[in-house]
């Protein structure tokens, strides 16, 4: 697949007096691995949030899987995220009251394409794939950081998304654990043809990407 999965066109975003994105235009090919790098405050996380429909640009247009998301309602954006976009966060963001398997099933709670049994089996399979077959019933507090991030990766993939957005996915992990988590993430995305866009500070991660986008002074640097 070589079509564009994400098309960002001249987007601008301002927070108060600070304009963090100043007319960014880029395209991300389907099934590719793209990293977005830049200094702190450069606007790379803002860009990721906009692609995920969780942040609105002040100007410009974003298309995801051929849909202009700036025209979608909040319910339609939620539907798009549930069906087509998985998100992995730096801080894992698991729900502390739920077990690992319940966390993984959470995005599928309103998914009518599959039965509860099917959802559970898929969650079990995903947790098995990320090496947590023996951690189904552990709550986040009983898991290490690496394990929590692996649960978060399984959760992001439960609805078989076409795009996975990762915001500093190894930022809260030690080097060895981060490398293992990254390998896992890349492996799963490549196996399933998922388009992966990761925001990172880590040059080693950037080095493994098909494409590196650097945001500097609010603009995309080629």
């Amino acid at each position, binding site marked *: 697949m070589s079509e564009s999965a994400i098309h960002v066109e001249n987007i601008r975003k301002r927070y108060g007096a600070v304009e963090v994105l100043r007319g960014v235009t880029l395209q991300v090919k389907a099934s590719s691995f793209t990293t977005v790098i830049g200094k702190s405050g450069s606007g790379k996380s803002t860009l990721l949030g906009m692609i995920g429909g969780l942040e609105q640009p002040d100007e410009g247009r974003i298309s995801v899987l051929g849909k202009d998301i700036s025209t979608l309602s909040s319910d339609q954006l939620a539907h798009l995220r549930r069906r087509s976009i998985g998100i992995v966060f730096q801080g894992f963001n698991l729900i502390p009251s*739920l077990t690992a398997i319940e966390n993984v099933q959470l995005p599928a709670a309103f998914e009518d394409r599959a039965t509860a049994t099917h959802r559970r089996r898929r969650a079990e399979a995903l947790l098995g794939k990320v090496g947590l077959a023996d951690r189904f019933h552990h709550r986040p507090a009983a898991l290490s950081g690496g394990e929590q991030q692996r649960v978060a990766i399984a959760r992001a993939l439960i609805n078989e998304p076409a795009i996975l957005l990762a915001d500093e996915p190894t930022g809260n992990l030690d080097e060895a654990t981060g490398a293992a988590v990254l390998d896992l993430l890349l492996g799963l995305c490549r196996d399933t043809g998922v388009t992966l866009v990761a925001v990172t500070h880590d040059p080693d991660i950037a080095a493994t990407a098909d494409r590196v986008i650097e945001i500097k002074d609010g603009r995309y640097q080629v």
Partner: protein
Amino acid sequence: MDRWRYVARELRHRSGRSLATAAGIAVAVLAAVLLAALANSYSRALEAPMKTVGADVIVQLTGDIPPKLEGLVFPHPNALLPAKAVAGIRKEPGVVSVTRAVYLWELAPDHYQSVLGLEAGETGLDGLNGRLLQGRPLRAGDHAALLDSDFAGKNGLKAGDDIVVGGDRLPVAGIVDAARGGKVVRADVYLPLAVSQALAAAAPQVQALYAFGADDANMLLVKADRRRMEAVVERIKQLVGKKAIVSSEISFRETLESALFLSERMGLVLSLVVAVFAVAFVLRATASAVNERRREMAVLQALGWRWRDVHRQVLLENTVLALTGTLAGLALAAFAAWAIGNIEVTMEMPWDLSSTPHFIPEAAVDRRQSVTVPPQLAWQVLAAAGLGGIFAGAISALAALSTRRPQPWSLLRSE
């Protein structure tokens, strides 16, 4: 994983906050229901004597003090009722029946006794005969008396003995338990109307004030259509004149107005105050809980939950807490009502319904009446408190969510 499991997990995970919210609602429901039940019981206790004064309406006329307080006298204040007024009352719409009576005090240096002569009828001799403890019923044509059981006990009298009233020796036909009889004005000695009329007609201190004839009366016991009670009372006052003493549920209520006001209104006011504090507490607790969970709500949105799904989740959690608190509050209220047992209220009967001369030292004691009632949990109060509790929980969640809608990415982004 379904929604209900998530609700259960969340409530258990935040057990302290869940418990505090449910307890807040439980306390409010308990207080509101219990206060309403106690106020209602007090009101019922105050109203109880109205149902046992002897008739729906008792009519008397204010009279003068006799020249000498000796022998048979009309109780003060009491006067001869004009025959024209009595005939007029009988014809009034809403008046079901009229029983004529002669009410007398017999005063001697060392004792007194109250004497009531009654016609036959439900509010007269028939009602009295229904409370017979010993002896035989008293008929309209008898030359005999019935004695109140307390009076008979105090004076060592029983059926078959004699009693002297106004110098006339009368055989005691029977003893009645008039205190709990309910439908007659209470006296020590009960006579057929004709006997009491003859005694009054022959009594010097009665005749000194009134030309009491052998067919006159100084008291009427009126049975009325309760739906037309107010109109009947008003019309009787017009017929008898300015000096009429018309005792009824209405006059009794007026006499006890302040006590009834306190019991009815204060119960309501206190319930409302407690409810307002509880709602404020639940609002604050829910707002804090929602604030703590802003990041979690943002995560749910990032995972594809619609805002209304998040909304429903929080609403469901709070409603479950409210329902738990409400049921606990209702159960506690029922238990507390049972534990409290009966409520005893002692009150003074109005002078015009007292069988005891007010200048007798025991009069104040005799006029006191104690009524015992159990706290009653009215279904309307239970329903209102139940719905109020659940509503408080739900409205707290909605209020908290309306002011706390998170901007998801601002809470989740790495930089």
